């Protein structure tokens, strides 16, 4: 078992997450960001699945729509 040598230790972090925004703001922004992340992740997964199935065949109906939807959402997040 590795032993610990006494030295100075950092004090507690100065900033608590809840203090960065008001509590109501934290909940609102967190909900927004989480929803957006899940939406994008789902869309990109669907898009990847569709693209993986292409395999040289004509693009299935709806691919362009999914791509456009994903692109718009990612654009909203990444600016």
């Amino acid at each position, binding site marked *: 078992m*590795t032993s*610990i040598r006494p030295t100075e230790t950092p004090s507690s972090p100065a900033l608590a997450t809840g203090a960065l*925004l008001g509590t109501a703001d934290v909940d609102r922004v967190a909900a927004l960001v989480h929803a957006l*992340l899940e939406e994008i992740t789902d869309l990109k997964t669907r898009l990847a699945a569709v693209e993986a199935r292409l395999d040289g065949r004509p693009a299935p109906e709806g691919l362009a729509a999914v791509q456009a939807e994903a692109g718009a959402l990612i654009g909203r997040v990444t600016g």
Partner: protein
Amino acid sequence: MTPPEGALAAQSPRSIDAILDWTPDTLPAVATLLGLRRYWMGPVFQALRRDYDAAVGDGPGPATQAEAEPIVQALPSARYFQWLHRHIQDRTWALCRRIARDRAEELAAALSTRPDDLGTLTVDGADLPVEIPAYYTFDYHRQDGGIWRGLEGAAVYLLGARIVHAGRNTDFQLHDQVVGDIPVEAPPRRILDLGCGFGKTTFSLKARWPDAQVTGVDLADPCLRLGRRMASERGLAIDWRQGDMERLTDADGSADLVVITMVLHEMPESAIRAALRECTRVLKPGGRLAMLENRLIGDPFRDTLLKWYSQLIDEPYWEPYRHMDLLGACTEAGLVEAETRSWYLANTGGPEAEADPRRWCTPWGLTLAKKPA
């Protein structure tokens, strides 16, 4: 006779790079985190800058970080900037932790000692008692448990290191670049990489100077195990040793080059000064010390944001380090010709980004010093 499939798999475990690679199920989340990070460094930063400029007005503006900070802190957009940064950090670790846990069994198997292991590995034991300094037990970067308590922490750190530079360090190219920028008069024969972690810089050192004996030293035993396997997979014979850079076990005058990258800002000043004294001791006369670290920009607005940057990701010693007289400390430790050169990661805007107050930048400094010949 063909061996059964299971036996083949047991003989040929996947590489660490393959085990800890992004997969179709994790790639969207990684891409999203990188997108969020760029959004935070781009539009969110620029909005904050506009608010700051409006608050300051047409006057000369604050001349110092201390004068700027209360103005920035009072801006409504500052809270969103801060919150988003911490949120990205916490989401990053959550993702990396999930990946590391999913692959823990395969990773542990891959790290078992193998005949094709290159170099050596020496960790805490009767022959090398190691004491972890208490300051090191703090969970830097908000990574629960740190990187020294177990393999999961080391794997999480490795995954995070690929994300943290906004996607520009996936193959640790930052470390190749900085090692390539270390000036030497002759190829070094013995090199120490202090605070090497899992070997991001150590690999680059051995790749640039393949004939040198390269030793990676770190307090985190799990990172060293990871580093040795990854080095072996890259065909790099490197010696890995658990140890404290304040108390090196190397002989006096035994190294031509000592390198420390992105470590000093996680140490209290007393520990930095002790480490510099050790560097002086182990360097040969005329030997070189090279250190890559953050530095101040000199723009009160962005230096304030970088102070927050460190606080938001739990880097307690970053801000004191940025204001420390490192060159003076080098001189005090017995080194000469100490200088800090501005250093920029490729494709991040370079000096132009630093000179433009409306662009986010992470300023690096490559500090060089020598032991008197």
